[in-house]
């Protein structure tokens, strides 16, 4: 186990390095001169050159990369070109909103997906299975922004129950208020996760029900419900761990569209604003941040899976 852990960790380092190079290259190749955002109409050419020099933008690209990465490992991801705030601070500032939203969406999705997937798998081909299947298909096929618009229309405009945007009512600081703002974005995201989880759980339930231990349990006189929710469930939870790890990578990118529709003040909408404003340091910071999450998420999934199912070890 220790060996596997170290091996996977070592594989991760070059990956992170490459990702950082790709991020950097992408920003370097981008059109538009970042210096221009500091320029005011009454500046001279020398002033502009001085700013360029101060920002280090007149050095060769590889030097700029090393300077950038050196700062990045110590937590300095540069400053926004728009509001001149440190990039990392902005990301960390927005992290709770995104993590809270995604965490509750994933939690809700898992809670619903486990019973639905188990029951659908156990009743393969029956109406309940077909229904769950249809829901899962719609879940992976529905454009989330459309679902969001429909919810906003029904619950905000038609029924006036829920606020359609933001995270807080101005001047109100209560948990209930945040909850009310968060319900719709949470449902939208949960639906998309639910669809993926249900399909996995359903198919692994079908696989598990053919295993010997199920027959043995039946032979001992267990009822279908006990077999399903006590024994099969234990085995079915394994793939969920992997899925959760992979969902980490979706934390930022998966939230961009939903956060934008609901103006949820998370990292996704920060990224959208940065992209619209060509705020390269922020874009770069968010890309790097979410790539690291994705890589670590996959790593965690692999390792947890190895711990939970010792058989994996021998295969590697």
């Amino acid at each position, binding site marked *: 186990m220790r060996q596997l852990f170290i091996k996977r960790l070592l594989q991760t380092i070059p990956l992170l390095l490459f990702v950082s190079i790709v991020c950097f290259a992408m920003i370097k190749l981008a059109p538009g001169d970042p210096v221009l955002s500091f320029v005011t109409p009454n500046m001279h050419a020398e002033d502009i050159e001085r700013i360029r020099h101060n920002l280090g933008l007149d050095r060769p690209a590889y030097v700029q990369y090393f300077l950038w990465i050196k700062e990045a490992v110590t937590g300095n991801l540069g400053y926004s070109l728009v509001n001149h705030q440190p990039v990392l601070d902005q990301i960390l500032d927005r992290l709770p909103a995104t993590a809270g939203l995604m965490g509750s969406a994933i939690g809700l999705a898992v809670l619903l997906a486990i019973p639905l997937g188990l029951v659908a798998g156990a009743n393969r081909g029956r109406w309940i299975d077909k229904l769950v299947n249809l829901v899962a298909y719609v879940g992976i096929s*529905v454009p989330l922004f459309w679902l969001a618009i429909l919810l906003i229309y029904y619950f905000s405009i038609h029924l006036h129950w829920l606020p359609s945007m933001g995270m807080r009512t101005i001047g109100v600081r209560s948990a209930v208020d945040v909850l009310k703002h968060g319900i719709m974005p949470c449902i939208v995201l949960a639906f998309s996760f639910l669809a993926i989880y249900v399909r996995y759980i359903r198919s692994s339930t079908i*696989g598990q029900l053919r295993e010997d231990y199920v027959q043995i349990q039946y032979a001992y006189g267990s009822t279908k419900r006990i077999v399903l929710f006590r024994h099969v469930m234990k085995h079915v939870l394994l793939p969920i761990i992997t899925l959760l790890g992979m969902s980490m990578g979706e934390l930022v990118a998966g939230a961009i569209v939903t956060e934008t529709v609901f103006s949820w003040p998370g990292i996704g909408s920060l990224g959208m604003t940065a992209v619209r404003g060509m705020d390269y340091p922020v874009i770069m910071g968010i890309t790097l941040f979410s790539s690291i999450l994705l890589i670590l998420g996959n790593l965690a999934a692999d390792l947890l899976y190895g711990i939970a199912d010792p058989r994996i070890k021998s295969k590697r």
Partner: protein
Amino acid sequence: MNRSKWRSVAGELRSSAFGIAGIFILVLFTIAAALAFLSPHDPNALNALERLKPPSADHWFGTDDYGRDYFTRALYGGRVSLMVGFASMILATGIGVVVGVVSGYFGGWIDNLLMRLVEVIMSIPSFLILLLLSVFLKPNVGNIILIISLLMWMNIARIVRAETMSLKEREYVLYARASGQGAFGIIRRHILPNLMPVVIVGATNNIASAIMMESSLSFLGFGVQAPNATWGSMLNNAQGLIAQAPYLALFPGLFILLTVLSFNVLGDILRVGFEPKLQKR
């Protein structure tokens, strides 16, 4: 690929109501998009007198805030969405098959290099790259197809690589190699034909994700630019008008859903049809 596999796919399709519905929807949408020019309305013609009219006999889906016929715009929008999806799928599948076959057949450092490349690209959340690239490049249909395909080929490459590695150990390939056939000939004659099932399944799923990516991009305003309609950009416009004209939000989203759903369902049916072993699972 032999005939029995196609027969198995056809059988799988016939027995699935979802599958038949999916094919019907896709054929219908394709014909509608192809015949969009038959509509009496111009998709981009402004008409101040006809602003935000609800659905009627003349304007089946109503009109938008510029007085443009929404049904006609949905037809033309479908044309763009389907075309982007199809073209991206072709390009991504092409890249994926080439990379996968080269990687799987030749192995060694080429394989190592290509698979590390795949890993790196897959380590950056693709929607972020999609957004970035579409900001950097001019957002026209060609560039969007290019960007989407550059983000989609990795899955096919991985599947094709695994399949190629198992195919090249088959006896007929070993025999062909022993009898002096070159690598190119073996790939063309023995590997590629047998890759068809996994490639077709992967390609079908890729169309679905390409259409979804294009719609999300257009919805965020980074896709095909105004005045040209796509389903995604129509929804972008509809969001702002949701209080006055909720019907504007209904159809484009429904069309995206139905198209993507159909491709996803067909992808699964093809998968089961090509691999009858899976059916039992």
